């Protein structure tokens, strides 16, 4: 018999950004609910979506629920029988409730004593009788980034049913038959035009297109195959992948006809091609153009207008420069290509004309002259305006460039200058209109003013890096001469924000981070993990704090809180770069120097799988345990004469050669060499533990052996703590 389950929740247009997540979620939710209702799917859960539908299909689910057997506990035996052996009212009442005689009850041994119990066997219900509850609980189970009231409710005692957008139909079939269910409407809203949403055997195609009949009418279906086929006849491509591929194919074809290709910006900086398949049910592509005079606008402004505001794809020529053309993905057949393109061109032209107005107006006032205006722009109520911030980060960036990045005085000056101007674009019309261009626009204006590369690029890129990936910061090629000034400005801006807000008592919580401090701290460690510095994180933090000139502090424990916060972000960064939590733990001590922490963990990770390293972890744990409460009182050399066993003198000899070698290699940051030296110690240490008893009665000998191990511990810890992995491997 046909046991296919098909569910389609027909909605008004769901936001494109939600669809990938919701599609997974509805599959998981239905799966969980089927299992909870003892109907475990017998084939994979398939999910599909378009802006107007969330669909789940399972080829086979059971015909009946699994049978249920449960033990219901009654009163304690001690309270169940009178002295004459007849049941007490408690026992009789329990039996009556279960619909049996007291004689049919079992006795159950529990830690609290013996109880009467009833073994209830319940035969599973027919699937079609349970499926309404599965849908009801699935509807309740879906989570939306933002849910809305739409005067709907479920009769499950939980009241209103919030949803992402109003539900307009539900296709719900099991074995080709409708599973009855309905969503009720609240009493306050009910009218002849606000009705319950009942399940049915119908779906709806594209709003405006069809190959037969009237567009938008109900389409009856009995199975998934028929459903998919009828949708296609009615201009709905159910598979996202197919929509994506159709878009990609047509984009390429149209771009070629324009003697160009889809701008690489789209692939590198935005997820436009990832987003558009979720905006349409039946995609096509049309091409449009705009006046060549707009090509004089900065490329960033052109692409922002096209991509972010219109979801259009910019087109570039062979040489990589933008052409005065764009490609638009539409949700219809391109029968009227010219009309649609003409209208799209009109919108693009209007937007570009606005952008040009801002571009021309903004350049009449230099960035420097805008800093006063920043005085009215509040950074934080306790920390003052953006003008004050600009002045603080000017000093901080100059200090970072010279004292942390060893730049010459001239470069440090330029870093300070860039930092001072970095926020000035917040007072421009362009950034007011296109907030996503902050930083970038400041850089573009600085370039137009003739500021040197060190300055304008530092401004341009100073919000970066945003992600944790190694390629998130601007590349060396992009930065050119601005590598140092950019790092200084980027660090200064973020450190100033983190330190100021922590001190002001604005430490983020697990769910609330309104100032995006997590991202800022992530940016700090990400920059530091790619830059050679001569100062530690704590020195940078302290210097940033000085910028506030002793402002009153709401959270006196801010400093340790900031350190904890940065440490966490650094561990996260290392894990995201592919190192396991245990490996990251081995270098946790070195968090103050993210770049060396990164290089150390690289080496640890490389050796991690080797047998030597595994024994090293185990042995090192023993070393740490045995020396836990011991403080050496004299240097090792004075103790060596007390050692006589071959295994301990062998270790001492080995260490006499290798410990200085480790120190030397560390000094040169040759961590691979350090590791080789450490690994070479494994065998002698192993032998030492096998042949030598450390905790002997003779206090002099014991002290000598512990001192030897302490020296060993100190030397290895100066690189990493291999025992951190041992815990991990448990």
């Amino acid at each position, binding site marked *: 018999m046909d046991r296919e389950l098909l569910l389609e929740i027909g909605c*008004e247009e769901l936001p494109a950004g939600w669809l990938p997540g919701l599609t997974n979620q509805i599959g998981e939710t239905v799966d969980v609910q089927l299992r909870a209702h003892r109907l475990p799917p017998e084939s994979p859960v398939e999910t599909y979506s378009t802006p107007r539908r969330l669909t789940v299909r399972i080829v086979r689910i059971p015909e009946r629920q699994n049978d249920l057997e449960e033990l219901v506990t009654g009163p304690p035996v001690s309270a169940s029988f009178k002295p004459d052996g007849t049941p007490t009212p408690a026992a009789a009442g329990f039996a009556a409730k279960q619909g049996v005689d007291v004689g049919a009850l079992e006795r159950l041994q529990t830690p609290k004593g013996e109880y009467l119990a009833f073994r209830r066997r319940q035969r599973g219900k027919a699937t079609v009788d349970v499926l309404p509850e599965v849908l009801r609980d699935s509807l309740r189970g879906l989570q939306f980034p933002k849910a*809305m009231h739409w005067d709907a409710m479920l009769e499950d005692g939980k009241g209103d049913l919030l949803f992402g957008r109003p539900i307009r139909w539900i296709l719900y079939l099991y074995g080709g038959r409708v599973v009855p269910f309905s969503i009720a409407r609240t009493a306050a809203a009910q009218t*002849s035009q606000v009705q319950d949403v009942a399940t049915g055997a119908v779906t709806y195609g594209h709003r405006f297109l069809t190959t037969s009949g009237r*567009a938008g009418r109900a389409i009856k279906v009995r199975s998934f195959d028929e459903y998919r086929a009828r949708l296609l006849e009615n201009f709905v491509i159910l598979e996202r992948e197919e929509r994506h591929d159709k878009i990609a194919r047509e984009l390429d074809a149209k771009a070629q006809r324009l003697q160009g290709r889809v701008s690489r910006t789209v692939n590198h900086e935005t997820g436009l091609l990832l987003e558009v398949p979720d905006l*349409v049910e039946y995609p096509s592509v049309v091409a449009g153009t705009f006046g060549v005079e707009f090509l004089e606008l900065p490329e960033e402004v052109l692409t922002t207008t096209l991509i972010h505001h219109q979801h259009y794809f910019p087109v570039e020529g062979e040489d990589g420069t933008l052409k005065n053309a764009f490609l638009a993905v539409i949700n219809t057949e391109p029968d009227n290509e010219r*009309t649609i393109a003409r209208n799209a061109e009109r919108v693009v032209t*209007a937007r570009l004309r606005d952008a040009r107005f801002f571009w021309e107006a903004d350049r009449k006032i230099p960035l420097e002259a805008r800093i006063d205006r920043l005085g009215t722009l*509040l950074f934080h109520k306790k920390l003052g305006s953006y003008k004050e911030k600009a002045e603080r980060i000017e000093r901080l960036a100059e200090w970072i460039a010279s004292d942390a990045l060893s730049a010459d005085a001239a470069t440090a000056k330029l870093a300070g200058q860039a930092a001072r101007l970095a926020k000035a674009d917040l007072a421009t019309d362009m950034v007011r209109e296109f907030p996503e261009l902050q930083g970038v626009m400041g850089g573009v204006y600085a370039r137009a003013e003739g500021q040197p590369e060190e300055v304008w690029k530092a401004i341009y890129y100073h919000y970066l890096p945003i992600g944790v990936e190694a390629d998130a910061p601007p590349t060396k090629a992009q930065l050119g001469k601005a590598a140092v000034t950019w790092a200084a400005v980027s660090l200064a801006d973020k450190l100033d924000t983190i330190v100021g807000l922590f001190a002001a008592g604005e430490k983020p919580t697990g769910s609330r981070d309104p100032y995006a401090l997590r991202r800022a701290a992530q940016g700090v460690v990400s920059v530091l993990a790619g830059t050679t510095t001569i100062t530690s994180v704590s020195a940078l933090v302290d210097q940033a704090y000085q910028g506030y000139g002793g402002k009153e502090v709401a959270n006196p424990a801010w400093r340790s809180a900031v350190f904890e916060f940065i440490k966490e972000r650094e561990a996260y960064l290392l894990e995201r770069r592919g190192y396991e939590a245990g490996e990251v733990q081995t270098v946790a001590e070195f968090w103050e120097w993210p770049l060396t922490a990164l290089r150390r963990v690289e080496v640890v990770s490389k050796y991690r799988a080797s047998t030597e390293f595994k024994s090293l972890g185990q042995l090192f744990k023993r070393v740490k345990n045995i020396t836990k409460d011991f403080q050496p009182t004299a240097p090792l050399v004075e103790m060596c004469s007390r050692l006589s066993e071959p295994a301990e003198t062998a270790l001492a000899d080995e260490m006499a050669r290798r410990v200085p070698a480790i120190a030397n290699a560390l000094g040169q940051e040759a961590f691979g060499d350090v590791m080789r030296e450490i690994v070479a110690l494994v065998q002698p240490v192993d032998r030492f533990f096998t042949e030598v008893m450390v905790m002997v009665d003779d206090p002099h000998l014991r002290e000598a052996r512990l001192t030897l191990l302490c020296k060993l511990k100190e030397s290895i810890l100066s690189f990493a703590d291999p025992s951190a992995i041992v815990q991990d491997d448990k």
Partner: protein
Amino acid sequence: MTFQSLILKLSEFWASRGCALQQPLDVEVGAGTMHPETFLRVLGPAHWRVAYVQPARRPADGRFGENPNRLFKHHQFQVILKPAPDDVQQMYLDSLEACGINPRQHDIRFEEDNWESPTLGAWGIGWQVMFDGMEISQFTYFQQAGGLELAPISAELTYGLERIAMVLQRVDSVYDIEWAPGVKYADVRLRDEIEQSKYVFGQVEIPGVEFGAFHRDLFEKYYLLATALLKAGLIWPALEHTLKCSHLFNILDSCNSIGVTERTAFILRIRQLAIGVAKTYVEGDAATSDPAPAIEGAS
């Protein structure tokens, strides 16, 4: 189709769907939402359907009549359907057809765009309706107004009349729209645009005081009056004077007289008035009349 016949078509269409045709609010507002026919009617349980044109003033968008797409003052056609009928999207699309737009020949889409008005303490979930890439309407399911949760939920449809007229008439400048046969939009509105822009960007001298200070003073006076009216329980006058404050805030904002620091404080004060108005309305008799729909849809 001329600008005026577009208005007539929409009015006719929505009247036939059970809407009472109202008139614009005779106070300066930034959007049709501020009209009591929206702001007050969406509160409380009473069902309601209404449609009206509302001239909307956006001082910051004034361009001295030089920009073909931006206006100090534009016109919205506003529809409130309370509660939102199940086929509200189709009704909206039908209204476009009634205006001569054939949806099969264009790319019409509902793209996520939630609406929020911090000054009114109001927000909703919905879309901007895109027509070949141009936003021609805002479609919102009101969730909250005046800080109050709403039930039942109203649908608000706001048509950008100039945008739709430009599309229908295939013109590139708003000033080329044919308002009435032989009469252009420029003939009706251009001087108004130029002069209003000059005014709101402070190109006027007021003897003895500075432009910004003068309007701040007006704001304070209207704020005082709105507060007093609210205290007296006079909901409509209190709302109108709250809207006066909102408009003055927009003027101050457009001529850069308000620091970003101060903005939040201004917005908060207006919102508190709006919340007071909404509360008083809901508590009073006005909103608790029978929810029996007086004018159920005729279609």
